[in-house]
Structure formats: structure tokens, C-alpha cells
């Protein structure tokens, strides 16, 4: 059983992971009025501290323990049974760490070009929201965090994006908000129905999942209401159309965060809330979700192959990759779910890195059209080498991180979702096709005049990318430390699901 360990730590590390960026965001916004030159330093200090805290969290996390660790539980709105309840287990740990690492890299590595103060303030607010979403164990708190993320992301896309940024930002905001509208009704209904079993009002997800039983029909409706919100966020076919627009129009930093951590809020939400609260309904909905996931894998891959814009190509590859993750999530076997969790992190690292590289190409050439680029390998061999590693990680080459997750998902899903898995495997081949083909067009050949002055990667960019490459190679070669932290939680999660679906 997943139970909250009641261990009280002297230092409220999880709360500070949320509150530090939140306060820093306000400080940065205020600093901008008088000391604009300090804002970057302040943003950097805050995000590096948050990153360090999350790494410390990784170190202090007890790897054999399946339950929630570092739990912080304070009453917030006692009238409604709402509390500030945070905790991490193996499923959320690496997402929290990823959020902690990704933001400082983005803040140090990418220059917003204008209005630095508000850019950094929104970035830090975004980090607070994402952190909160991954740690919240209270449905209300989760909803607040899940929803509040929209505001900074909206302004980041709208304020620092490319030509169609307003359209893309609005579409992103409305799609996601429409999804969460259903979830809000679902959350309230869940709490109100659970009250009959529990005898008190609580938004605590653990208490509800362990203590309340829902009638088959009610559980299905509730699951659907959650699933709509998460499906939009993931995004699953056919509600994915906001993603290519948002990714393409967002500034590089926004794309990295969007692909790296924001989309994971959907897949993580499926696991932590959808399946955990309503296992039977999840079982019932499995065929539909498998199908949508596999359509996403194949459709995303085909659409990516067709793209002429490098950034849009990477965006569609996200649709395909997240299809895999959803497939693994709903296969509900230990291996598949572990694979899905690993793959959430892997996708964040490799796609985040790809967006960074595409951003660097754009900085140099002011275009992302594949047909405009040629022969970059000749003029920037190191850049090409890094691109190769990241790309191969995204393809799922053995020895790199992408393989670990994809392999676990496919093995774990084969039993419960055989035919879907077989079709999804085609997606692996297609991934190799579109990425290698794009690589071939961009990097091979003889550089023409415009491309022959393509600058080699500089030291700052190199250091930035080396962090990503290190994670990619380490996880690929030696995944054991990662897996042994994820697996106990996943196993107890699967036990919970199995005990409810017998």
C-alpha cells in the first residue's frame, strides 16, 4: 500500500522547493523596477538553489521505501478539508529533480533578448507551479498548481515567442483550461462522493484512494473527467493540436520547459490521480487510451516526417513519445509503468536538449526550415556530434537513456496490450526514420554559402549541453540507481491497482 510516512523533517524541503521560486519571482519582479541588472543574478541564484535542493532531495531519498517521503502536511482551508500536503515517492522524485535541474539550465543558457525582468519572473513562477504539481498530494492543491502554470506559460509564449505567438499562446491556454474545467467538477464530485465513505470532507488523495469506494458508474464518469484534463495536457490524439503551435511559437526556453516538464504533468496526473483513484475505471477505459496512445505514436511519427520546420518536427516527435508513455502507464504492469516513469524523465532530457539545439541553430541562421540548412557537420563538427547523441537518445538507441524507458514499456505492455504494442513498435522504427532523415538533410552534404559561416558551439553552450549528454549517457549505461528508486513505488502502486480490480 502507498501510505504517507509521517516522518517529520526539521527542514521543510518540499515546501521550500515551491515557495523559494514563488518568492523569488516576486523579488525579481520588484527588483526590475529599480535594479534591472540584478534580475538575472537573482533568478539564477534562486533557480540554482532550487536545483541544489532537488539534488539534495535525490541524495536523501531512501531508495527502498515505496511510500511518500519528506511529507509536509499543513491545514490550508480547513472548512473544505484542504491541506498543503506535499510528498515525493519514486514516481514523482525524478520529475521533481528534472524540474529542479532544467530551470537553472534554461535560465543560464538562453537569453530572452528583451524584457529580462518579466521573463525571469514568469520563469520562476512557472517553476513554482510545476514543482507544486509534481508534489501535491491534495486534489485541490494539485488543481491550483496545475492551473496556475498556464499563466506564466501563456505570457512566456505570448511575450517572447515568434510570429504567431499570440494565437499559439491563446490556444494553449484555452485548450488546457477547457480540459481542467472538467477535472475541477470531477475533483469536487470525487470529494463529495468520498465523503459518504470517509465520513468527513477531505481533498487528500491518499485518504480518498485508500478509504473510499465509488460505484462503477460514478467512478467511470469521474475517471473520464480527470482523463480529459490529462489527455489535453499530455497531449493525446485528437486534442494534441495545441502542442505543435505552442512548441513552434514558444521561445526556446519555453519549448524546453514545455517539453521537458509541462507535458509530464499530464502523464504523471494519469498515474497519480486518474489510475490511483479509480483503478477499475482505468481498467475499463484502457482499450480507448491504448488506441489513442498508439494513434499518437504513429500519427506523431508520420506528421514529424512530413515537417519542413525543424522545431515543428521535434514537437510532433513529442506527440509520438508521449503516446509511448501513455501506453506504458495504462498497461499497468510493473515493468511498463516503471518504463513510463523513466521515459517521462528521458523525454524531458532528450527533447529538452533537442529544443535547445534547434534554438541554437535558429540563433545562428535565423531560420528553422530544414531545406535552408545543409552541411553543418562540416563547419561545426562538435555541434553535430552533440546533436547526434541527443537525437540517438530520442530514437532509443541502446546504451542511451531513451532505450531503457522504451524497452521497459514495450516489454511490460506486450502481455496486456499485445496488438497495440506491436503497432507501437513500428513507431520506434519511424522515429529513427524521421530523425535520421532530418539529420541527414541538415548536417550532411556540402554547406552552401549561408551555412558555411555556421558558428561552432561555444563554451557556454558546450557546458550546457554536456549536462544533458552526461544524463543521457549515464542513464543509458547504468540505469540501476534510477530504477531502484522508481520500482518500489511503482510496485506498491500496481499492488493497489490489482487489489482494487480483482
Amino acid at each position, binding site marked *: 500500500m502507498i501510505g504517507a510516512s509521517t516522518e517529520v523533517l526539521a527542514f521543510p524541503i518540499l515546501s521550500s522547493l515551491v515557495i523559494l521560486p514563488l518568492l523569488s519571482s516576486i523579488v525579481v519582479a520588484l527588483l526590475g523596477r529599480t535594479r534591472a541588472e540584478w534580475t538575472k543574478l537573482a533568478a539564477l541564484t534562486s533557480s540554482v538553489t532550487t536545483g541544489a535542493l532537488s539534488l539534495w532531495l535525490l541524495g536523501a531519498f531512501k531508495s527502498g521505501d515505496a511510500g511518500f517521503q519528506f511529507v509536509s502536511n499543513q491545514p490550508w482551508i480547513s*472548512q*473544505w478539508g484542504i491541506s498543503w500536503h506535499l510528498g515525493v515517492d519514486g514516481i514523482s522524485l525524478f520529475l521533481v529533480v528534472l524540474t529542479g535541474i532544467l530551470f537553472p539550465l534554461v535560465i543560464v543558457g538562453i537569453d530572452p533578448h528583451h524584457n529580462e525582468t518579466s521573463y525571469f519572473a514568469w520563469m520562476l513562477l512557472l517553476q513554482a507551479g510545476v514543482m507544486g504539481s509534481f508534489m501535491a498530494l491534495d486534489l485541490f492543491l494539485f488543481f491550483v498548481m496545475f*492551473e496556475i502554470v498556464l499563466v506564466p506559460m501563456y505570457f512566456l509564449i505570448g511575450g517572447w515567442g515568434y510570429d504567431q505567438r499570440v494565437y499559439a499562446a*491563446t490556444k494553449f491556454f*484555452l485548450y488546457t483550461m477547457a480540459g481542467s474545467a472538467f477535472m*475541477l467538477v470531477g475533483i*469536487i464530485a470525487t470529494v*463529495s462522493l468520498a465523503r459518504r465513505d470517509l465520513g468527513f470532507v477531505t481533498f487528500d488523495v491518499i485518504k480518498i484512494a485508500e478509504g473510499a469506494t465509488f460505484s462503477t458508474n460514478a467512478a467511470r464518469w469521474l475517471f473520464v473527467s480527470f482523463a480529459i484534463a490529462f489527455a489535453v495536457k499530455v497531449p493525446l490524439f485528437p486534442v494534441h493540436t495545441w502542442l505543435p503551435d505552442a512548441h513552434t511559437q514558444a521561445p526556446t526556453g519555453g519549448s524546453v520547459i514545455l517539453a521537458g516538464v509541462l507535458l509530464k504533468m499530464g502523464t504523471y496526473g494519469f498515474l497519480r490521480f486518474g489510475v490511483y483513484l479509480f483503478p477499475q475505471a482505468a481498467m475499463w477505459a484502457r482499450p480507448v487510451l491504448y488506441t489513442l496512445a498508439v494513434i499518437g505514436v504513429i500519427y506523431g511519427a508520420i506528421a514529424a516526417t512530413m515537417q519542413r520546420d525543424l522545431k515543428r518536427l521535434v514537437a510532433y516527435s513529442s506527440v509520438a513519445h508521449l503516446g509511448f508513455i501513455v501506453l506504458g502507464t495504462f498497461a499497468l504492469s510493473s515493468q511498463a509503468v516503471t518504463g513510463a516513469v523513466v521515459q517521462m524523465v528521458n523525454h524531458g532530457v532528450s527533447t529538452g536538449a533537442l529544443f535547445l539545439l534547434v534554438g541554437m541553430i535558429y540563433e545562428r541562421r535565423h531560420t528553422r526550415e530544414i531545406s535552408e540548412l545543409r552541411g553543418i557537420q562540416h563547419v561545426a563538427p562538435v555541434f553535430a556530434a552533440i546533436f547526434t547523441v541527443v537525437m540517438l537518445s530520442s530514437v532509443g538507441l541502446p546504451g542511451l537513456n531513451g532505450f531503457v524507458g522504451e524497452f521497459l514499456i514495450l516489454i511490460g505492455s506486450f502481455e496486456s496490450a499485445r496488438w497495440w504494442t506491436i503497432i507501437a513498435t513500428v513507431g520506434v522504427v519511424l522515429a529513427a526514420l524521421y530523425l535520421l532523415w532530418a539529420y541527414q538533410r541538415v548536417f550532411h552534404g556540402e554547406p552552401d554559402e549561408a551555412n558555411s559561416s555556421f558558428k561552432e558551439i561555444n563554451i557556454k553552450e558546450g557546458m550546457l549541453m554536456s549536462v544533458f549528454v552526461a544524463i543521457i549517457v549515464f542513464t543509458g549505461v547504468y540505469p540501476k540507481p534510477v530504477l531502484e528508486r522508481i520500482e518500489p513505488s511503482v510496485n506498491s502502486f500496481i499492488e493497489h491497482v490489482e487489489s482494487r480490480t480483482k
Partner: protein
Amino acid sequence: MNDISTFVGPVIDWLAISPLLALLAGALVLLLVGSLTGEWPWRLYAHLAALSAVVAIFVSVRLWDDVDTNGARLLIGGALALDQFALLGTIAICLAIVLVSYLTSDYLHREGVDMPEIYALYLTAGIGALVMIASNDLVVLFLGLETLSLSLYLLAASNRQQVSSQEAGLKYFILGGFASAFFLYGVALVYGVTGSTRLINLNTALASFIPVPRNDAVLLIGIGMILIGFAFKVSLVPFQAWTPDVYQGAPTPTTAFMASVGKIAALVALVRVFVVAFPSRSDDWGAIILVLSALTLVVGSVVAVVQTNIKRMLAYSSISHAGFILVGLEAASHRASPNVDDGLIGVAVYVVLYAAMVVGTFGVVSVVTSDQANSDASGSTSLDSFKGLAKNQPMLGLAMTVLLLAQAGMPLTSGFVAKFGVIQAAVSVGSYELAVIAMVCAVIAAFVYLRIMVNMWLADRTDTTTVVVPTLSRISIGVAVVITLVVGFLPSLVLNLGSNLAELASK
């Protein structure tokens, strides 16, 4: 039969009606002294109006504790009710009067005039509103309604230099009079069936009422007409046609006043009448409220999307908010459910928080569109005047963003607390379909607020004049933003009020 020598006047608890008296005193001083003296210096008109509203707030807070210990009761022989539901409305209305008075002062100074009548009218309108929300008798309610409405007609037409303002006043007057007639006719029919206009007597009479088919039809027609009267005042679809024109034509601070005080008064009175007097017919009116609520939500939010004038946009958004508040009333119609009180609390919390949001929002509109107020009315309040506002005036842009996000119902703002309350009420009594409709409409309405934000943050300013934010407006908008954020982060502050909120005075 009572002959005149044995007639005993009702006992009047002067303290309990002192919020009314405070506003009345302010209005009288403004009118009498103001008309006999020259223009007062130092914005004294506004300060006096605000002062009497603040006194009313203080007394209401004292009364709140009184009700907490002694329970809700009736005043003046049962004409008015003293309960927390009414007191919360009183506080919200008086707060709106304070904020709007300061906005108006700046507005009038910009126009080059300052006159006491406007403030006196705010106070008389406030008196009408306070009577409405506390009235325990349909006739008293009508008196309050007319006092409020007559003041609002004048206020809408108060900008004598603008044709659109006069048009707004006349339009509001004609349609409002029409609605009052409906209301009065409904009261007459209900009186004909039951023999009383006291809300609580109506309830007891109807509860033991053996429905004779013909009489029940008369009763239901009466209830329907009362509802139509309210629906006009609250601007529920399909009775909303006047709202955008009047909101657009009236001076912006007046629009803020109508959208806050007018709406709170009509909504709270509507809820009181239906919950106290007609609970025995809740199956009948509950269904009608459901339909009205859904229509109001859908039309309000969808039509708002295609507007290009900021005041019309906000007018439709206020219509959609009224639909949201009705979701709470609909929940309160499920008498059989144990959670029926959630609806009442949801409504009360919503109107208070909405008042702060809407006054703040219109306050910003009033400041931003002021420099062109003398030019063509349709052009001056166009959405374009918000272009690049955030670059020009970052703090004002930020304030407006917070208020708009609150109206959209984003978490960590009071708007979310308000929406959460009514949605929670609807879900807890099983009105899932209405809850879903309301949330989907909230998303559509969010598009409207995003459009304004896009103009503020992402568009370039067309004219280079700097928007000036006068001090009093700054205070008003600041108070609204602070309320919005503080309640958003600490909803317990308003929810703690809720324990006796649903206990309506009826004895």
C-alpha cells in the same frame, strides 16, 4: 378591529437599522448642504459619501457579532430581516460605494466638474439596495427596488454632455419600469392566492396549501412574474438586452456601481425571496433557474467574445457571472439534499468577491479610457485603448491582469474561491450538468479576458500619452486587488464567515 387609539407602532431597533441610517444621513447632508454651498474643496463630497458607507460597514460588523450570539431576527414588525446573509450583502454594497465614490471623484475632476448629486444618488441607491437585501416582505422589497432603480436611472444619465449617457438612462428607465410592473403584478397574484406578502407567512401558507389546480396556476404565474422582474434587474438571458447598451453608455464609475451594487442587491433579494417564501415550490422554480442559469452562462460568455468595446465585453462578462451565481441558487433549490445550504453560502461569498473584482476592473477601465471621455463614446472605450497599457503603466497593467484572471477564475485569486464555492454546491446536490456547463462557459469567458490581456501586454501602444492614475483611483483599484489576492491565497478568511450564513431570519 384596531381603532386608532389602541394602535401600537412597531418596536424599532434603531441600532439594527443604523447602516441604513448612516447612508441616509450622508445623502441628506450632501443634498441639503451641498445645494446651499459652493463646490466643496479637497474632494469632500467623495470623502463624505465614503465616510457614511464606512460607518455602515463598521456597524454591520458589530451587528454581525450580535447575530452570531443572539441569532437572526426580524426588525420593524417583520418588515426587515437581520441575518448574516443580509449583513454580508450590506458590507459588500457599502464597500462598493466607498470604492466607486473615489473612482467617481477622479472621473468627475477629469471632466472638470464635481457635484454632490452623484454621491447622494450612490447613497440613496445604496439605501434601496440595503432595504432590498434585508426585506422580509414583498412590498418592502418593491420599495427598495424602486429606490435603487430610480437612483440608477439618474446615474446612468448623469453625464449630460453625452448623448449615449442619456440614451442609456432612458433605455434603462423604460425597460426597468417594465420589469417593475412585472414584479408588482407577480406580487399581487401571490398575495391573491395566499393573502400575505410577508415572506415567512407565504412559506407557511404555501406549505399547508392544498393545491387547487386553478389557484396553483395563479400562484405559479405570480412566482414566474416575480422572477421575470428580478431577471430584468439581474440581467439574466433572455432579459439581458438592455445591459450592454446601458453599461456602455453610462459613465464608467456608474457602470461599476450598477455592476456591483445593482447586481448584488437584486441577486441577494432574489435568493432570499425564493428560498424563504417559496421553498415548497422549489421543484418548479428550480427547473426554471436551471434553464435561466445555463442560458445566461452560455449567451453571456459566447457573446462577450465577439465584442470590441471593453465596456460591452465586461457587460457580457457580468451577465455570465450572474449565471454563475444562479448555479448556487439552483443548488439551494434541492431542498431534499443535506447540502442545500452550500448553495446559499456559495451565492453570498460569490457576490461579495465579485463586487470587489468588478469595481476594480471597471476602475481600471475608468482610468484608462478617461482621456478620451469627451470624444465619441463608441471609440473612446474601444479595446484598442488598452493596447500596450502594461508597457506604459506596468503596475496598472498588473492590477488589471490580476483582476481579469480573477474574473476568469484562476486559482490563487478570489474568483477561483467564488467559482469553487458555487460549483461545489452544485456538485454536492448532484447538479453535475449545470456544473459542467458553468465550467465550460468559464473557459469561453476566459478567452475574453485573454483578449484584453493580449492587448495590454503584447500589443504596442498606439498613442504615446501616458495614462495618469489619480491617487483616489489608485487607492480604489489597490483595495480591490488586495482583496482579490488575499482571499485567493487565504480563502479561509471568507469561509470562516460561513457558519451561520445560511440561517435566514424568519421568526
